[in-house]
């Protein structure tokens, strides 16, 4: 059973008990990510996430790490375009300790200028690692090009330039203007006693207040279709092709999920079968939808040899065209539904994936979905609705392509071929 409590400061707790595990996953989800940054703050959400582990009034950075390790648990954090998440997974006995550390970091981080300087270097190294990984890099460049001008297009990590400008004042300012209790959901899944949990969290977070909140409204991302070839001395060509996607709350989101499974999401998908299995042209090919508040992106990635790149693009276009013209077959849709339902049920094993689902549903919809409701929504998707989604999203005028590697732009089929 899922239970929800809202503290008087507006912070929400959603919790689900699981009898199958001995541990508990707890996540503090702040509805703030890189898209909520001003241009001059680029990279600050992620930098802040790092700085929350760099020392509090009670503990030094080293002591935080030691105490976490000492309970055998995992405490970490990650930043996305829309969220910053601090989470812990510990044996139930250690839940109070985990909450105490999360809360100490959250309330009492010092943001010591010396630590800030050191951490800048660490994040700069992280940025450079992306630059040296072509598959990561092509995704980064692609979204930058395609969503040019939208805060969603900016990288999560920031740039070396913006990082060099980080300082304590900026961090505090960002924190004060964005970390509002109403923007925070604490999600918990695993083995715990509900009343004890709520008492623990109420004490740790119930009186947290912010008075200077000033959020930038999240504007729907506008796609600027691009056709970019970045020549690099690499062994392989890395391709990203994307079209607009759907907003996270869009009523047809399940249809897009199913379309994705059929087009490029699984091992029996059209792209995987056609490009990799039948012709062996790409060692890796997949598609995936990104859902954001107000809009999304649907992206196809392929890694291929230089001489096969034009053919791979042609085949991708062909499969998209087929889907627009004919939609998908009834049997395919049925299989895709079973696939997604099976995956959802299998994922219920893991307390961390349940915890994430609780938080994401609360942040995006302000409510929870029962498993039966989720399955029902999938079952109700029709052939017509998949066809409609394909024809709404896939247009030659809105398609974007980025190629990275040893390839000439003129050899690749242009978007008009779609």
């Amino acid at each position, binding site marked *: 059973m899922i239970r929800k409590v809202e503290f008087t400061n507006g912070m929400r707790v959603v919790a689900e008990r699981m009898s199958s595990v001995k541990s508990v996953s707890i996540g503090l989800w702040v509805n703030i990510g890189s898209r909520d940054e001003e241009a001059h703050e680029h990279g600050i959400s992620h930098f802040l996430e790092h700085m929350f582990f760099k020392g509090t009034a009670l503990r030094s*950075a080293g002591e935080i790490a030691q105490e976490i390790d000492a309970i055998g648990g995992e405490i970490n954090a990650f930043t996305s375009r829309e969220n910053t998440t601090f989470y812990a997974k510990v044996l139930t006995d250690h839940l109070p*300790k985990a909450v105490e550390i999360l809360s100490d970091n959250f309330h009492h981080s010092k943001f010591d200028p010396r630590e800030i300087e050191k951490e800048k270097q660490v994040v700069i190294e*992280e940025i450079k690692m992306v630059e040296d990984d*072509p598959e990561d890099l092509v995704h980064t460049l692609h979204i930058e090009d395609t969503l040019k001008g939208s805060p969603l297009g900016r990288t999560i990590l920031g740039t070396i330039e913006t990082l060099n400008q980080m300082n304590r004042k900026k961090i505090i300012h960002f924190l004060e203007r964005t970390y509002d209790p109403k923007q925070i959901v604490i999600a918990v899944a695993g083995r715990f006693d509900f009343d004890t949990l709520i008492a623990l969290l109420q004490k740790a977070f119930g009186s947290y207040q912010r008075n200077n909140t000033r959020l930038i409204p999240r504007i729907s991302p506008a796609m600027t279709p691009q056709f970019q070839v970045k020549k690099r001395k690499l*062994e392989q060509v890395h391709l990203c092709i994307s079209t607009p996607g759907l907003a996270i709350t869009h009523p047809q989101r399940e249809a897009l999920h199913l379309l994705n499974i059929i087009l490029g999401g699984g091992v*029996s998908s059209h792209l995987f079968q056609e490009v990799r*299995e039948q012709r062996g042209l*790409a060692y890796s090919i997949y598609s995936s939808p990104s859902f954001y508040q107000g809009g999304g992106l649907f992206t196809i990635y392929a890694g291929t040899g230089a001489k096969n790149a034009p053919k791979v693009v042609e085949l991708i276009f062909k499969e998209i065209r087929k889907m627009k013209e004919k939609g998908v077959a009834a049997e395919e849709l049925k299989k895709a539904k079973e696939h997604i339902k099976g995956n959802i049920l299998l994922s219920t094993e893991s307390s961390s994936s349940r915890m994430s689902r609780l938080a994401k549903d609360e942040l995006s919809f302000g409510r929870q979905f029962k498993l039966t409701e989720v399955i029902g929504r999938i079952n109700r998707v029709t052939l017509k609705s998949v066809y409609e989604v394909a024809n709404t999203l896939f247009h030659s005028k809105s398609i974007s392509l980025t190629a990275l590697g040893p390839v000439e732009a003129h050899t690749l089929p242009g978007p008009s071929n779609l």
Partner: protein
Amino acid sequence: MRFYACLLIFLFISVESQPAFAEIKPKQIVMKNGLTILLIEQHSLPIVSVEALIKSGSVDDPFDRAGVANLTASLLDEGTQKRSSTQIAEEIDFIGASLGASADLDYTSVNLRVLKKDIERGFDLLSDLLLNPLFDVKEMERVRRLILGSILSGKDDPTTIASLAFDNIVFGNHPYKNPVIGLEESVQKIGRDDIVSFYQNHYLPKNTLFSIVGDVTEKEAVALVKKYFSEWKNVSPKPVLARNIASPTIQPKKTELIEKDLTQTTVLIGHLGISRKNPDFYPVIVMNYILGGGGFSSRLLTHIRDNKGLVYSAYSSFDANRQPGAFEISLQTKASNTNEAISATLQEINQILKDGVTETELMEAKAYLIGSFPLRLETTGKLAGLLSKVGFHELGLAYFSDYPKYIEKVTREDILRVAKTYLRPDQMTLVVVGNLAEAKVKELP
């Protein structure tokens, strides 16, 4: 604040006190054809995970044919006597299950994860893959092209480049020097005969272990294995199972610098390590945990990342296989910081060799290794994976309750002793990949 937290911990213990791992007791059943089943029943969720482990891997590749074990595994789901490659993919997708085969150095594993209601279908697919693969030439050529593509893309990946060079030096002529996936020239040479002969010699019931974990009773599990695998016979053209490969020996240290136009340099430092059966395995993993094995509090990470801001990541590992694997420290840093990061690393090694570890470090390492153990076993898939390694390395059915005791027994003296035995700063091989003009790497002392 701290006092309050302590109080609460006591409250929790009294409410939810239960042994965390003692109750994991696998059963072992040996079938008539020699196939061994290891079973852990867990009925809280309707999910079953199976890992079928063939006790042969890339170490058993023919001498000039690195990549045979991997290509054989990759072809299992590319067509059988009953189903085409596409049909297999569709059937797996249809039940929302996952089924995949992959080779490793010492073994090959086929993993299945299904909902309880689909278990018959899952076993049907699993047995079809293991018993009836076609190894069709057309499929083989296509998969070979994909593997070659993947090997080629590895040439853009500094970590892959560095590992290849490092393993080549550290393992001398031992087959562990080759990547599981094979090498460009060896994969070109593999013929269908190689695949068929690998399959016939190694994919045998007596060479196979099934770990089954989840919502299934012993009776059900045995019935399923009987139904789908009793026809599997121990017939092979050659009666040889595992080749007798001499253990790798310590090779002369070497420095290899590889030019690659990158913003970061990738550094690997190390030498030959230990096997899984080494009696010092547990003190070694505790020592390695403190040195750089993981967690944010390892010495390497705190001293090189946190105190100096030199790297984003720095890890050390002992890859303990059936035969000794590598001891390896890996880090990535800005080219101009390369020498500083390397010397800071060596300093940490010398430090632990000279002074060992503190009582607090030891206590914390043990707390982590013991405390995180149950968290590593929480899903049926993870548990099946570990269970089959327990079976493969013959660690005993009491492993799950013994592990914490083994860790608990480790002393500071043990750690100093194993540091002195298994860390050899004078025998370090060094591999650097990156912009060499900027890195200006100095030879190791």
